[in-house]
Every structure is written in structure tokens, then in C-alpha cells.
């Protein structure tokens, strides 16, 4: 059994450790002995409810987690490692590289990138004082490293039902809380928002005064909740909208929610991939970069999506997505949101095709294991 050590330095939020937790599980399922070294056990324990933020060394579901601060105590354990994964360019000091007694294969898994150049850099050799090192570029092109599907995404039993997940976190959807149930006339649409700070007032008004549908609004993450609270919205019913302020969930529960709603507003990279795989319409909020460089990433994503969408729908969707990623979405008009909401079921067809394309062509775990095998370490 090959041993893989994944190094992850958490900078902020849950994205980095989220991907690493997911990757570790997937490698374990494929018969690798997996060790994760991280600087932030608190974040790990928040998304992995089996883990403890207090234990510097722990084995949870077959995966060994070691706090970076005490790694020196476990030199012997990692000295026989075959593969080292630097998650997102996580720097490994020269002292730690000396722990490895045999020639290791070092793989720097970069942030997911929607731009085509990711393919050009994928599996590019890099410099390392020991062993061999390569860049591995996750993306949505066949020629890239792909994305993490996570096998658990397809295990959709009753625990994946929206009502059951919400119940787990103390939210009970009684029929009386939902106007749609009460009147039994309007269709009910479920929307999840997980965003950075964003201007949602026009969007919220669109839902609130919609005469055709009613909505459950599931609000995840501090920044989302602050953005919505600033509009004076509280948990519960408000005209057509029933808002739910969710506590921090486990990764698996979050994955399930993303797959169960009709529309996702999603941020970052890992959550974005969940939305893509769910095959449901989404608006992706890319991490804001200097000089609005995130728009390049949005345009690259749109170029891929254009393959699966009718041109008239694509034109409106692309305008909306670009605006959503500029100036916190302030320029978006209610009409634009209205069009999006009204056409969700039609738009969903395109996202299903997109999802099928990704699942068929962009399997990161398969690509990663194939690469490791090809290096014959």
C-alpha cells in the first residue's frame, strides 16, 4: 500500500481543508495509506465531525491527521512516504523534506482554475531539491487534472433529503411555515446561498414579490448571513420567502444540500465543484482578485458552459454571471434575476449536460492515481 502525505496550510475559511479532507477520503477509498498534515485542526473538526480540534495526532476513518506543529515527533511515520501532496502550493520546509528517506514524488495540487492555461501547466515538472515534483492543475477541461467528484456525492439515500438535513440542524419545515403548502397553489423553489459579502437586495425583492413562486432560502456561511441580515431579513417567513440561517454544517451535509436545491449561489472552488456536479443552475462567485482578474476566470467558465446552452439563454446568463462577480453584484437589475428565476427549469437542462460532461471527462482522483502509477514509484 502506497503512503501519501498531504500538506495543507489553511489560510482562511474552509475551502483548503475541505478539498484536502475530500481528497484524503478518496485516496483512502483507493487503497492509499493517507496522512494529512495541517496547521488548523479547528477548521478540520468543523467540517469533519469525527475529528477533534484538540488532538494533535488522530486517526479518523482510516486517515491520520497530524498537527504541523508536532510533525517532528512523527518523523519515522512519514519517512517511508511514496507521494507528497502540497495542497495549493503549501510550502514544505527543507527540514521536513529531510524526513523522507526514499525518493518521493511531490505533487503540487493547485487551486481549481477555469482558464485554459491550466491544461498547459498540468503535469509540468517543477523544481525540488529531492525526488521529482510536478504541478497538478484541477480544472474543467479533459486535458486538465479534473475535479474531485467525491464518491459520496452519488450515495443519495434518505439522509440526503433536504428536510432531513435541515432537521439535523434544528430546522423543522412544518407545512404551516410554508405558504406554498398553506395555499397549495404556487410552486416552491429551494435556493441555497453560500457567498462572500454581496449585495442581495434586488435579488431578495425579486423573490419576495414574485407572484408565481414561493421560496425557501437556505443561507450558509457568515458572510452570506451578514449580507442578508443587513437587508433586515430574519429567520422565518417574509411574504414569499422562508429564510433559514444555517449553522456551520459538516462537509457531507453541505454537499447534500447543494444537490437538493433548485438553485445555488456558490463561492470559492470546492463548493463550486459541488454545484457543477449537482447539475443544478448556479451563479458562481469567484474569489475576488486584484484588478477584477476573477472575471477572466468567469469568462473561461462561460466559454465551457456555452457548449451546453442555447445562445439566447447563454447571452443573458453570461451577462448575469459577470455582473454577479463585479462590484458585489450591485449592477444586477430585478428583471435579470426575474428572468433567471422564471427560467430555472429550462436552464437546468444545460447544467445537467454540463455536469454529465464533467463527470465523464474530469475525474481528478482517476487522473491523479493514473499519474502516480505512471511514475512507478
Amino acid at each position, binding site marked *: 500500500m502506497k503512503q501519501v502525505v498531504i500538506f495543507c496550510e489553511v489560510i482562511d475559511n474552509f475551502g483548503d481543508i475541505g478539498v484536502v479532507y475530500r481528497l484524503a477520503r478518496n485516496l483512502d477509498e483507493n487503497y492509499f495509506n493517507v496522512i494529512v498534515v495541517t496547521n488548523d485542526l479547528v477548521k478540520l473538526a468543523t467540517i469533519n465531525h469525527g475529528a477533534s480540534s484538540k488532538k494533535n495526532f488522530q486517526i479518523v476513518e482510516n486517515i491520520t491527521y497530524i498537527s504541523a506543529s508536532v510533525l517532528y515527533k512523527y518523523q519515522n511515520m512519514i519517512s517511508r512516504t511514496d507521494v507528497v501532496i502540497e495542497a*495549493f502550493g503549501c510550502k514544505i520546509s527543507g527540514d521536513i523534506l529531510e524526513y523522507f528517506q526514499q525518493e518521493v514524488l511531490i505533487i503540487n495540487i493547485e*487551486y481549481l482554475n477555469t482558464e485554459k492555461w491550466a491544461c498547459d*501547466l498540468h503535469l*509540468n*515538472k517543477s*523544481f525540488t531539491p529531492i525526488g521529482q515534483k510536478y504541478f497538478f492543475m484541477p480544472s474543467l477541461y479533459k486535458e486538465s487534472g479534473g475535479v474531485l467528484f467525491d464518491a459520496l456525492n452519488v450515495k443519495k439515500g434518505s439522509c440526503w433529503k433536504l428536510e432531513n438535513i435541515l432537521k439535523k440542524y434544528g430546522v423543522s419545515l412544518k407545512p404551516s411555515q410554508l405558504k406554498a403548502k398553506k395555499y397549495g397553489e404556487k410552486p416552491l423553489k429551494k435556493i441555497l446561498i453560500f457567498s462572500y459579502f454581496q449585495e442581495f437586495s434586488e435579488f431578495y425583492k425579486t423573490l419576495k414579490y414574485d407572484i408565481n413562486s414561493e421560496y425557501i432560502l437556505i443561507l450558509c456561511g457568515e458572510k452570506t448571513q451578514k449580507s442578508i441580515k443587513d437587508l433586515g431579513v430574519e429567520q422565518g417567513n417574509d411574504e414569499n420567502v422562508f429564510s433559514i440561517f444555517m449553522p456551520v454544517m459538516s462537509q457531507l451535509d453541505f454537499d447534500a444540500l447543494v444537490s437538493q436545491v433548485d438553485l445555488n449561489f456558490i463561492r470559492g472552488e470546492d463548493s463550486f465543484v459541488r454545484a457543477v456536479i449537482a447539475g443544478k443552475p448556479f451563479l458562481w462567485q469567484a474569489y475576488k*482578485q486584484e484588478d477584477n482578474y476573477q472575471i477572466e476566470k468567469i469568462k473561461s467558465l462561460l466559454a465551457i458552459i456555452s457548449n451546453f446552452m442555447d445562445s439566447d439563454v447563454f447571452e443573458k446568463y453570461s451577462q448575469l454571471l459577470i455582473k454577479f462577480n463585479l462590484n458585489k453584484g450591485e449592477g444586477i437589475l430585478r428583471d435579470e434575476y426575474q428572468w433567471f428565476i422564471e427560467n430555472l427549469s429550462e436552464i437546468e437542462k444545460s447544467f445537467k449536460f454540463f455536469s454529465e460532461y464533467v463527470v465523464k471527462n474530469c475525474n481528478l482522483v482517476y487522473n491523479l492515481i493514473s499519474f502516480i502509477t505512471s511514475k512507478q514509484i
Partner: protein
Amino acid sequence: MRIAQEFRNGNVIKMGDDAFTVLKTQFHKSGRSSAVVKFKLKNLITGNISETSVNATDKFDEIRLDRRTMQFLYENDGMYAFMDQETFDQLELSSEDLDESAKFLVPEMAIDVMLYDEKPVAVELPNNIERKVEYTEPGLRGDTSGRVTKAATIEGGYELQVPLFVNIGDVIRIDTRECSYMERVK
């Protein structure tokens, strides 16, 4: 030490025990605030050309090469001979070592030869040089906008595109980094 994104074409970078001339750099913004640099490198000792990607903030030593002014003598079967103007020692560089610079060498010209561990590895041309046009077709009367170009052969045999108003015998200034026409000198 310099961070990877600060290296430019022509710089010499040290990676491990090896020194490389940077032939090409590509900078890409990755996720969040990170970035990746892809280098096309030439090993100064073996001459092997390779591509390497590194994080833009990775640090590497830059090697300052020894520089000696020499006179270009002649080219013979892809080998270019130079003479040290103080010691009269002669040394040779291959066309691969010289790359684009070979286009602008003319006998007896003085040029800086770069040495690594006393071994010649490259020459360094000034950013622009002046050369006489040896042959070009006459330009058509009336078309002097400068936007339309024609081929011209300069001393040494290199052919480049020049505006239509350039004639045989004119001296032109050339950007050696782009291998392109800049202006007519006289």
C-alpha cells in the same frame, strides 16, 4: 535571492546545483492571490532545454555571469569564434548558445561574452544596434505610411521587415530583443 516572478528572459537562475538561462517566462494568476510561473530554461552546462513550473513566490538565487568584451571573428559550420581583446585568447560558441543573437553578428564587431565558471555560455547584445541594408526591393511611390512593410537583408545576411521607404544603403536601428526594425538612422 529573488522570487520567481521577478526573473526575466536572459537572467540566469540557479536551481539546486544547476544554473539555467531563462529563455521564456509565462506568468499566470492562480486561485486567490497565488500565481504560477512557467519557465523555459537552458542548462548552462549541458545545454539541455526544459520547461519548469514554480510558484511565483518561490525564491531562487540569480547568478551574475562574468562578462568579457570580445571581438567576433568568424562563423564556421555553426560554431562562432570570438577573441579576447586583451589576452588574444580565442573561444567558440555554438549557434544554439547564441540563439537569436547570431543574426546580428558581423566580423570584427565587439560584443560581451558571458562566462559561467570560465566557460562561455552566451553573448549579450545591446538592446538596439545599427545595421546597413544590403538589399531590399524598391518601395512603391506614394505609399509612405510606414504600415506596409517589405523584406530587407542587412549586413550579416539576416532578413527582417522594414517600411517601404527604406532603401539599399540605408542604416537602420534594430531592436535585438524583438529582432525588429525600429527606425531609419540615415
